[in-house]
């Protein structure tokens, strides 16, 4: 959130936080590179083609996938569409007002979109019905239900899970007859994003809202299954040194593997 804050209060809170951090402690007792528990509820919305509710600590989001048909973009006639849209529901925090998407929700939408798109999670080329005319559109809508930091990762996991478990009505012409079969989306891999913040020299993974409100920098990095970096987004109004950045990459990569293992377990439990 870009809440307008007095720097006095901000600085006070930061000083306290730094005190703790100097002892490598966080307010909630976590290690600096420790995530809060991740809770997943698969397929809560039966009317969606796929859906998932994901909590990271007290942050809670729900994502739903709808697959519809439509026209492709003129410059990609041979590809289906992926459209990601995150909404900060006003019920998620006292700071959120109803209204059209603001810069913060647009940032979440676009960072999640790039992570999914650039990792090539989905083979959009398989979602073409008639090239240049009719393709499948994968709408991924993400509702932010409760805000307590690290919306990027919660939204990302929810989006990935709802895509990975979605089934859509695929029209197939079989011996002249049109058949509709429930078909999974054409997946290639499971990407994972990991978000951290810096406060002074410290790097904290999975920040709470309180921690996030005094961050110097924030960094979200998406990794594909081979450990490649697929998308990245720096936040925050303090510069980052190259060394810090490399350290963030080193910390984030193994965490991405852990989260991916969790995601895959959830999927294989549900669809053995």
């Amino acid at each position, binding site marked *: 959130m870009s809440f307008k804050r007095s720097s006095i209060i901000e600085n006070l809170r930061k000083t306290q936080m730094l005190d703790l951090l100097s002892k490598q402690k966080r307010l909630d007792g976590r290690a600096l590179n420790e995530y809060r528990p991740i809770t997943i509820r698969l397929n809560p*919305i039966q009317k969606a083609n796929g859906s998932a509710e994901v909590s990271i600590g007290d942050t809670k989001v729900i994502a739903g996938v*709808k697959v519809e048909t439509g026209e492709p973009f003129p410059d990609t006639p041979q590809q289906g569409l992926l459209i990601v849209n995150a909404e900060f529901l006003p019920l998620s925090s006292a700071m959120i007002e109803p209204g059209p998407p603001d810069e913060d929700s647009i940032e979440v939408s676009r960072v999640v979109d790039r992570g999914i798109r650039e990792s090539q999670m989905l083979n959009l080329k398989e979602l073409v019905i008639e090239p240049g005319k009719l393709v499948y559109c994968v709408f991924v809508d993400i509702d932010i239900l409760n805000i307590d930091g690290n919306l990027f990762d919660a939204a990302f996991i929810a989006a990935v899970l709802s895509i990975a478990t979605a089934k859509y009505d695929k029209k197939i012409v079989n011996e002249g007859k049109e058949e509709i079969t429930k078909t999974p989306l054409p997946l290639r891999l499971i990407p994972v994003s990991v978000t951290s913040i810096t406060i002074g020299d410290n790097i904290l993974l999975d920040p709470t809202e309180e921690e996030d409100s005094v961050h110097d920098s924030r960094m979200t990095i998406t990794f594909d299954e081979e450990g490649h970096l697929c998308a990245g987004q720096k936040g925050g109004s303090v510069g980052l040194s190259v060394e810090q950045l490399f350290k963030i990459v080193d910390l984030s990569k193994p965490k991405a593997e852990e989260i991916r293992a969790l995601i895959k377990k959830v999927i294989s439990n549900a669809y053995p």
Partner: protein
Amino acid sequence: MIKLIDENGLRLDGRRFDELRPVKIEVGVIKNANGSAYIEHGKNKIVAAVYGPREVHPKHLLIPDRAIVRCRYHMSPFSTEERKPPQPTRREIEISLVLRRAMECVLFLEEYPRSIIDVYVEVLQSDGGSRCASITAISAALADSGISMKDLIVGCASGKADGQIILDLSDIEDKEGEGDMPVAYMPNLDKITLLQFDGIFSEEEFKKALDLAIMGNKKIYEVLRKALMEKYFKTEEK
């Protein structure tokens, strides 16, 4: 034309004319809110949250001797058969209005001068009767927030299908039936706080439908009461 009631008087989902769909209420689901609740009523899945009473911005909106209430009913894009674009429709704006009025019936607004109470409803999955389920959820969220209330409110529709008056319409009964009558009700004060209807009702059918809806509301009230009690006892145990 779809047949909505079979020769045995059973509806498409097996219910009798006066039978409710399953209702499940959970209180306190949104951590940041001052009060919140989640309801499943049939296939409806709805979250309601209350923020306030809090300061009014901009100042010129405040009322010196009572609180303002704002309400936003919104459907998630994935809540419907066809994806619903996120911007509010005229239907959502009207429902926000009738829900706000229903709420105002139970609140002691004079106890919160110069302040605002914001109520947000998000329909995660929609089914017939989403405005009724919403008012039940709102009522639970208001109770959870501790704001002074004259009574609880519950909501339940009745309607008409295949010429019969039935309770608690599902999506298909709403669409294919001959009438729909959403009712919200204060069980202790025995008053109707929300009433809309459309279809074709004789005067007799209208009265029957209203009585049936109130009967349904009384059953939902029991579910709501239980959910609040449960939450209350849990709090005690702490």
